[in-house]
């Protein structure tokens, strides 16, 4: 079997596996649903996920060890992840192949020539990682102040390592390196000496915007699968809504269509994960290269090169996607091979990042997070409509972990989880937020799926006991994601004398967080004059009544001057009948006034019990803007959002 055939098979298998893992990410027990499948496995494999979250949280989330495996593979074997594993890469390769099937050799060769703009992806990577690294730099500088000797040594090692790893081709010459090191150390010492100890956050994890794995997960979860399912509602979970998902789909399709212009456009120019692997894999032990055997210089190897890495000339190791097309195209198969030594045809190990470009990109990235935080969205200006799923970390940490892969949104059985738009700040774009108007029933009491789908711990995997505050968690109480507020101007029994309390009925916690305050109010035009009375029935002098209107069981009548209200069981245009058991002993005399009253149960929320699940909001019959609504006030994840005394312990 040809190596390219094997590669295609592997790509196909991984792509199918990816689609399968997306498909099965629904709650249920059928064979096509989530029954222990590692639905987020590709996200865990993604080394940029590991690197990005380590920068923001200073911690490697357990499942992300898979990312280190890919890093190790890349160090040894080159970018096999790009050529064999990445489902987005496979899709690009497929679209590019479709577009160029049977094309002229010359055109294909021109298409697959190296372009200097391929350096852009490294700048994308630098911007994204710098935006994520602000806190790390701050914390290290602070640590240097607390333990100067150790920290200075660590800083020196870090600076040297940084210079060696990323700048060795950028900062050249001994004098340059010395100057750069001294400058960095001086900046470091200055920062350590002057930084205030406040815990400001200067980091933002935005890698998920362009990281191919979160991007393709998001696109499949929110746009591609739901669109594909439209006609197959009998078989597949269709009819779900995703607010603002159109943009997600447009971005995805646009990246695919760009393959028509240049093959693997995304991989060559945009992909930050590819850039990371390019940096890690440029000293790769095994790589494509010329063996030194006689080569006809026919250039066929360059014709179908996916990475545009020019295997014919000095090969650009960082750009090589390991597609192996060159090996397949080589007519003699001797001069080109996959070798544990440098190419005899020469190697370009740099990636074209210039000193100025590096500094500019890093500065732009470092500035991005503080700029985003100017709005105060994670501080006092927090958005009360940003209701996060149960188990979410406090907002700053949430944003430091969330990849916007939207696996939680896909897995949410009620469809209440939605991708956020820009209304909560651009940092929160496409992160999960509850919208109780969408979906089948708010956040279900007995569901903990989202936290188990999350690959990074932005949403912690809760147990049902922890969510309910039962068993070992009894002293902590239930996990609250918000608090319900009754809008007394819109609520039927509060504002309009109409019985309702659907919210109270549906409140799932026990005892209920919604209780009722019962009142009896005289209805409009409810003072009626008695014409005659006979036991339980009154004939009225007017005005005319709507027959049956007061026979619903919610109405009572009370004789003026009496304390007692008697339930009405029937009425005609001019007759009122009360329950026989409460008939008058002495019938009211002609001219007496009776008042028709409605019994109203008005919903009141007990903030000590409400968990913010939103079932009440979902069920409220006031359909436009609900008369009971959840805001994120009192959510467990943030002590500073607590409303009630004695909940902060």
């Amino acid at each position, binding site marked *: 079997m040809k190596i390219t055939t094997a590669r295609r098979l592997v790509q196909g298998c991984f792509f199918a596996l990816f689609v399968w893992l997306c498909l099965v990410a629904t709650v249920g027990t059928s064979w096509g649903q989530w029954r222990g499948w590692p639905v987020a496995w590709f996200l865990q494999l993604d080394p940029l996920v590991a690197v990005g979250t*380590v920068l923001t*949280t*200073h*911690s*490697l*989330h*357990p499942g992300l*060890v898979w990312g*280190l495996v890919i*890093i*190790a593979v890349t*160090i*040894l074997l080159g970018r096999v992840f790009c050529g064999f594993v990445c489902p987005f890469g496979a899709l690009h390769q497929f679209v590019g192949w479709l577009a160029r099937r049977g094309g002229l050799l010359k055109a294909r060769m021109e298409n697959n020539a190296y372009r200097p703009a391929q350096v852009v992806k490294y700048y994308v990577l630098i911007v994204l990682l710098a935006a994520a690294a602000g806190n790390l730099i701050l914390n290290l500088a602070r640590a240097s102040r607390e333990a100067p000797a150790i920290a200075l040594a660590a800083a020196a090692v870090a600076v040297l390592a940084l210079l060696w790893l990323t700048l060795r*081709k950028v900062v050249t010459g001994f004098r340059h390196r010395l100057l750069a090191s001294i400058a960095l150390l001086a900046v470091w010492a200055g920062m350590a000496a002057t930084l*205030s*100890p*406040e815990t400001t956050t200067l980091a933002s994890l935005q890698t998920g915007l362009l990281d191919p794995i979160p991007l393709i997960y998001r696109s499949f979860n929110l746009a591609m699968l739901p669109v594909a399912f439209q006609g197959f509602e009998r078989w597949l979970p269709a009819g779900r809504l995703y607010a603002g998902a159109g943009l997600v789909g447009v971005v995805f399709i646009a990246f695919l269509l760009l393959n028509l212009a240049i093959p693997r456009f995304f991989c060559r120019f945009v992909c930050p994960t590819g850039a990371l692997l390019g940096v890690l894999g440029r*000293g*790769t*032990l095994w790589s494509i290269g*010329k*063996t*030194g055997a*006689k*080569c006809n210089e026919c250039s066929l190897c360059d014709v179908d090169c996916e990475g545009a890495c020019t295997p014919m000339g*000095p090969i650009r190791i960082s750009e090589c996607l390991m597609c192996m097309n060159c090996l397949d195209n080589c007519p003699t198969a001797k*001069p080109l091979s996959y070798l*544990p*030594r*440098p*190419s*005899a*045809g*020469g*190697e*370009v*190990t*740099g990636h*074209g*990042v*210039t*000193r100025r470009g590096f500094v500019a990109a890093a500065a732009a990235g470092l500035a991005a997070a503080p700029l985003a935080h100017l709005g105060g969205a994670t501080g006092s200006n927090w958005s009360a409509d940003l209701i996060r799923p149960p*188990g979410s*970390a*406090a907002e700053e*940490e949430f944003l430091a972990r969330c990849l916007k892969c939207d696996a939680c949104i896909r897995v949410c059985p009620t469809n209440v989880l939605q991708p956020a738009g820009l209304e909560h700040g651009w940092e929160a774009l496409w992160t999960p937020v509850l919208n109780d108007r969408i979906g089948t029933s708010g956040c279900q009491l007995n569901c903990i799926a989202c936290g188990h789908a999350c690959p*990074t*711990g*932005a949403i*912690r995997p809760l147990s049902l006991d922890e969510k309910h505050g039962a068993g070992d968690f009894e002293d902590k109480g239930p996990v609250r994601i918000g608090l319900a507020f009754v809008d007394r101007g819109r609520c039927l029994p509060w504002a309009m004398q109409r019985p309702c309390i659907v919210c109270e009925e549906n409140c799932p916690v026990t005892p209920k967080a919604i209780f009722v305050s019962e009142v009896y109010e005289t209805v409009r035009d409810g003072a009626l004059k008695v014409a005659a009375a006979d036991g339980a029935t009154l004939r009225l002098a007017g005005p005319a009544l709507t027959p049956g209107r007061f026979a619903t069981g919610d109405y009572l009548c009370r004789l003026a001057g009496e304390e007692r209200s008697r339930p009405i069981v029937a009425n005609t245009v001019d007759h009122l009948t009360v329950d026989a058991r409460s008939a008058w002993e002495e019938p009211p005399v002609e001219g007496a006034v009776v008042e028709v009253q409605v019994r109203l149960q008005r919903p009141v929320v007990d903030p000590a019990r409400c968990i913010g699940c939103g079932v009440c909001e979902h069920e409220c019959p006031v359909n436009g803007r609900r008369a009971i609504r959840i805001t994120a006030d009192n959510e467990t*994840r943030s*002590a*500073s959002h*607590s*409303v*009630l*005394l*004695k909940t*902060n*312990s």
Partner: protein
Amino acid sequence: MTPVHPPSPSPSAAPPPSRREFLRRGLQASAALAATGGLGAWLWNRHPPGDFNRSASAALLPDFSARDGGRGMSIVTGQDRPAMLRRGLEAMGGLGRFIRRGDGVLLKVNAAFATPAILGATSNPELVAELARLCLAAGAAFVVVTDNPINDPESCFNLCGLAPAVRAAGAKLTVPHAADFVPGTLPGGQLIRNWPVLSGPFHGVTKLVGIAPVKSHNRAGASMTMKNWYGLLGGRRNQFHQDINGIVVELAMMVKPTFVVLDGTTSMMTNGPTGGSLADLKATNTLVVSTDPVAADALGATLLDRTWRDLPYIGRAAERGLGTADFESLHPERVAV
């Protein structure tokens, strides 16, 4: 900028012996792998998600109270606050009884609102400045004045006149910053649990004096020396209004001052604690110096035409042994200026 390793001189030549090159690359790769693995192992789940209370609760404020068996209270009548203060301290045995050479003194004022001193919503600047001067004259190493006000802090200290007065007296003014608040839990407390407390300005402090005006307060009944400790709380402290008597008692448990000065030269009878009009004030011509804040507040209640029984926190604080509501039992010395 992009280095190019030149191709081998003759492409057709046999490949050069590459064992050394392979070893070099192998070592490099091994080092990279080891670094990756090491970093991974070191960082593995260091901060599990949802680890909310990473910062442990710090110790709360030390006990500053004077337990020397001396007189517990003096009551001065008059209108000249600095003179009343001097006379009151004299009646207590002189400031030297409380402040020793080298002491660091913190004056906890009430600077809650950005209103002029004449409206009486804040501690009187002349009184505070006089106390600061007396402390420095008694040998204090430094005097620091602080509060966590309700209105904009800088505006509060400047508009109420405390900032210029305090600086002119040679004391230091600390306008609190976020880093000055450290979460703490009051032993035996129900409310002050893992709550940010203004502890930054207490660095090096050995003596604490509270200086508060007498003001009506719709929720608490009255705001005097004990309610004044509210200004040592940070965070969303307004939720404590859900149990105002409980929080004032816990504040009295948390803060044990060297002594307090209750300034009832004028008292805010209505529209407190903000005031805003001279019509809200009444000349009550009384200044109290006391080592017992409970007793001082019990006396203050009488200036507002009430008794301590109208203010539940006074009775509850007394029950807890934080002081006495029966201020006469302290045999206060009554003097006039």
